[in-house]
């Protein structure tokens, strides 16, 4: 099948067994690849109600049909699992070189199931799988783990690891790769930790079949050429995602002090330009990327060199603004710390900011922590990151994320637990950005920006109006996840204005038949609705109530800066939700209608909803 390796590798880490399965053509047709594959796998194979950390949960990793091919930024891989953070399907994508390597090894998806008794590194070398003892690596940071494995196995292996946070089942533990790329969200690193999988190493020597190699080369050259013609390129690559920091402040959307406000005084000191002036040593591109946003940095800490990839924008927002770290070196050091411990910097930053605010309000005390903690203090940050990753003292509770921590701590702290569905809000305040607000409210995995980054639409169309905002969010939730299915990065389209139409020539060169974005959008909608149904099956009463933002955003006006005084009240949220559900073909309770599911061919979903009395 052109574009696909043609096989799936299923690994049972409990039985230390593996099996190569032929890729199902219907799966490829209906769900394309990447996030489509991993979420469908979790939907089909992990029973409803399974313990995310138990033997019945699985972790899947899938590149897409364009991954590994000569087309701009075709280096993405998607991980999926039943998320410990949210209790619903969670997934997260990662750049670098891991996804393409899976395809060169001959697979369109890896499935990891069971639980190992002892720590293990999965070593996948084309058709061979070795269960390598990882007892010596257990407890080690992700950097040392990857470095050790590269030395032992060879530099040609692409390696994904977890840090101590993953081992200790922190609900927002990430997966690390290539000394700085992460699949950060939804706690997939913790599920690998529960399975005692310390690392996955992959090396492949095979070719990816394409319909017309000459056409792929020709079209690929043309696509790269078009990227270079874009005027946005000159601004984009030198600073990468960090370059948006001043703009986000200027529009009053920069998370600051646990989202108490949305403008960070001194943001210039932690933005892209400060990075470039002070710490960047090289651009570090993902596979086949013409416009690398990856920056690799070096700083001095207590006389020693500290290396880190980044910080990229989300990390700057969540560790910088939200925890108020004042200097780029602080943010970079905190970034490195999180990466090495295996903490997602988005949720990690949100949880630490939440803890700092709880401390301010006396909800968490000095007696409980054994010390003072304060905003903008790197020592406090390091202390909290460590007790969370190692689950010591108060860190044990914080390790379960802001929703659970707030519910246990009480004192209405849930009001400022910045999360939706259990997943912490990422780096854009949306109190003065309704399209961005409804995007966060409805993102299928919880409050994540990558499903729909609509804040530019708000800025262009008016910050206060609700009109057309939900519709735009749905459009973006169709387009952006489509990239997750094909295995490419979306940033060329988002950031430098590289037109979507450009890709369709590549689809034809790779697949050998005409494929349009529209075909992929249908799969993206199918996936979206399937995930919604799974959430309904998983969580009693799941629906509209799970789509509201934290009370802070509905009731507490922004304290300062360009968005001072702004909020989106509950009535406005209701209007956005009504519009959104209508656009989606869902009822007012936020449930997909039978007609909507039928149109997408999700007959299995209908049957399951009926069997549980959730559909007439």
């Amino acid at each position, binding site marked *: 099948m052109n574009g696909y390796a043609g096989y799936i590798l299923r690994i049972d880490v409990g039985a230390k067994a593996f099996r190569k399965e032929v890729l199902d053509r219907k799966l490829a047709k209906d769900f394309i690849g990447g996030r489509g594959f991993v979420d469908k796998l979790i939907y089909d194979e992990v029973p409803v109600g399974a313990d995310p950390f138990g033997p019945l949960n699985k972790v899947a990793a899938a590149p897409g049909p364009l991954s590994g091919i*000569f087309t701009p930024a075709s280096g993405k891989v998607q991980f999926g699992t039943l998320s410990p953070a949210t209790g619903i399907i969670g997934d997260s994508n990662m750049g670098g070189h891991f996804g393409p390597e899976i395809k060169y090894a001959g697979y369109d998806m890896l499935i990891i199931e069971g639980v190992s008794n002892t720590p293990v590194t999965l070593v996948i070398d084309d058709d061979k799988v070795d269960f390598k003892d990882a007892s010596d690596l257990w407890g080690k940071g992700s950097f040392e783990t990857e470095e050790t494995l590269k030395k032992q196995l060879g530099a040609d292996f692409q390696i994904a690891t977890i840090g101590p946070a993953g081992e200790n089942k922190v609900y927002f533990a990430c997966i690390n790769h290539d000394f700085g790329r992460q699949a950060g969200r939804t706690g997939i690193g913790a599920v690998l930790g529960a399975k005692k999988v310390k690392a996955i190493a992959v090396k492949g020597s095979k*070719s990816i079949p394409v319909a017309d190699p000459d056409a792929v080369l020709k079209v690929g050259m043309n696509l*790269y*050429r078009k*990227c270079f013609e874009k005027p946005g390129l000159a601004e984009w690559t030198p600073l990468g995602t960090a370059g948006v920091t001043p703009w986000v402040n200027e529009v009053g959307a920069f998370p600051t002090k646990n989202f108490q406000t949305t403008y960070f005084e001194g943001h210039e000191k932690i933005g892209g330009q400060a990075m470039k002036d002070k710490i960047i040593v090289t651009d570090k591109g993902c596979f086949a990327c013409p416009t690398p946003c990856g920056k690799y940095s070096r700083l001095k800490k207590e006389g020693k060199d500290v290396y880190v990839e980044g910080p990229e924008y989300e990390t700057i927002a969540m560790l910088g603004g939200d925890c108020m770290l004042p200097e780029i070196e602080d943010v970079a050091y905190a970034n490195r710390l999180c990466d090495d411990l295996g903490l997602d910097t988005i949720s990690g930053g949100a949880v630490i900011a939440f803890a700092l605010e709880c401390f301010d309000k006396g909800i968490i005390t000095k007696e409980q922590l054994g010390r003072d903690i304060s905003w903008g203090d790197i020592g406090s940050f390091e202390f909290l990151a460590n007790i969370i990753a190692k689950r010591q003292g108060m860190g044990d509770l914080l390790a379960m994320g802001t929703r659970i921590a707030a519910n246990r701590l009480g004192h209405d702290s849930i009001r400022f637990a910045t999360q939706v569905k259990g997943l912490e809000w990422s780096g854009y305040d949306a109190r003065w950005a309704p399209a961005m607000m409804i995007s966060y409210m409805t993102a299928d995995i919880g409050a994540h920006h990558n499903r729909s980054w609509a804040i530019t639409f708000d800025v262009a169309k008016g910050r206060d109006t609700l009109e057309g905002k939900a519709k735009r969010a749905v459009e973006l939730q169709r387009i952006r996840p489509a990239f997750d299915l094909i295995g490419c990065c979306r940033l060329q389209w988002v950031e430098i204005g590289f037109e979507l139409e450009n890709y369709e020539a590549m689809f034809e060169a790779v697949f050998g038949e005409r494929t349009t974005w529209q075909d992929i959008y249908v799969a993206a909608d199918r996936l979206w609705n399937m995930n919604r149904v799974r959430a309904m099956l998983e969580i009693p009463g799941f629906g509209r109530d799970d789509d509201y933002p934290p009370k802070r955003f509905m009731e507490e006006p922004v304290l300062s800066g360009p968005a001072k005084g702004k909020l989106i009240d509950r009535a406005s949220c209701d209007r956005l939700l009504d519009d959104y559900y209508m656009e989606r073909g869902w009822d007012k309770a936020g449930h997909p209608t039978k007609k909507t599911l039928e149109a997408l061919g999700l007959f299995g979903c209908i049957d399951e909803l009926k069997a549980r009395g959730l559909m007439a």
Partner: protein
Amino acid sequence: MHLATIDKLCSGCKACQLACSMTRRKEVNPKRSFIRPEGRFPAPGDYIIKYCTQCGECANVCPTGAISKKGDIYDIDEDLCIQCGACVAACPFSVMLLLDGEKAKKCNACGACVAACPRAAVYDSDTSKGGRY
């Protein structure tokens, strides 16, 4: 054409390898290319591009004289190649390829990598120009 590189421009994207394998072999497979951008991480945090400098070490060790200089490049006469692997072992840059069931193959300075590199990290020293599209 003579290949040359500016390592500090490389971002490790492997576009050179893809263009090489598709041009020379009609395959999408970076492992079957004659150029190797290698990252050095976590420290010092840079890339080194290994490529064929047409140094002739392979020709020096070839026991059958299959490799000889033709114009600017060293070329392999596949009829003479006995697949012994001496050239692979001798290559200072690990860019000779000897795959199972095939004769040895090497870079012929076709320039596909130059054309494909988004950073002009690999360029043609005859013209001092990279592709950069």
